[in-house]
């Protein structure tokens, strides 16, 4: 999977879980500051991402995923 494909997949999840417009999702965007994803919605994003991409994202990793790019890199490395 390319980084773009992972980003597109995350955008779909963000739209469903937190109502984020896919147009706003880009690697440099911060989940909390730019996309207004709060801490519990972030958990829903992570759980959905685990199912969608077949990866494991443990609780202690979630706090390190500050931007969409962080998440893309983590998923890319795991898959």
């Amino acid at each position: 999977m390319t980084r773009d494909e992972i980003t597109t997949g995350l955008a779909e999840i963000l739209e469903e879980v937190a109502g984020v417009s896919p147009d706003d999702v880009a690697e440099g965007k911060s989940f909390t500051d730019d996309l207004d994803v709060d801490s519990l919605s972030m958990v829903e994003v992570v759980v959905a991402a685990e199912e969608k991409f077949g990866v494991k994202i443990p609780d202690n990793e979630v706090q390190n995923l500050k931007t969409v790019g962080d998440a893309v890199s983590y998923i890319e490395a795991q898959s």
Partner: protein
Amino acid sequence: MSGSRILSLGHYQPSRVVTNDEIAQLVETNDEWIRDRVGIVTRRIAGSETVADMAAAAAEKALADSGLTAADIDLVVVATCTSVDRSPNVACRVAAKLGIDAPAAFDVNTACSGFAYALGTVDHAIRAGASRNALVIGAEKLSEFTDWTDRSTCIIFADGAGAAVVTAAAEGEAPGVGPVVWGSVPERGDAVRIEGWRPYVKQEGQAVFRWATTALAPLALQACERAGVDPADLAAFVPHQANSRIIDGIAKRLNIPQAIIAKDIVESGNTSAASIPLALSKLVERREVPSGAPVLLFGFGGGLTYAGQVVRCP
């Protein structure tokens, strides 16, 4: 012995209603944020009432509605994690206040899952012939264990009590309390804590949210299966009132669009072990669930612990 059933319910809430605007005077937060993100509009905070006072008040109402008297009760079990006194336990204090003579009386502490644990224990005692008529109570005064400068917890927790009178089902009568599905995740004990001397509640919100919204739905469905109840036939789902979004997250995975989803958290906050009997008692009081209808109870919280069962509405 063919099992047990809930005969009646009762609840007690302190008279003081605390709004989100009042909380916003203590910590940096606002009404809209709390409504949207947690689902709480108001909560009740006790004044001088103790856990035992609230437990006894709820139990008195349940007993008054049961057709039984204090003399008929032979077992009192109280679920609580916020009783300040180590002894006597809350169950003995309730028995003393209500004039119940010589009951077996003990407290159960499994934090927010406590009521379902206590109900399971009472059901087992009745099945074993160790009790005929029991009081099972959830009562909490979390305000005494809340750090009112910590906005991650002080917006959530509240005080209150709920109680049920549980009696032996007649021979041949279908049981009204289904088999309990219970357990714990001891290695995750740090996720919700009330530790040490004069402690405050602390929790890892994300870890609890993830566990609750992913691990619990299959266990709740197991409780339905063990009771022989098709989830599609549930009249209501009464989970621990932890957070509106946790309730929605579990309910979504149960796929029970026909069931009433209890949301007493909106007006009562999170009252730990008291939240399930409080919400159930109010549903019954408002006649939202017909008598005999199956209702799924599911508690979860500190420990981490969980327990749930299907009950028939009194």
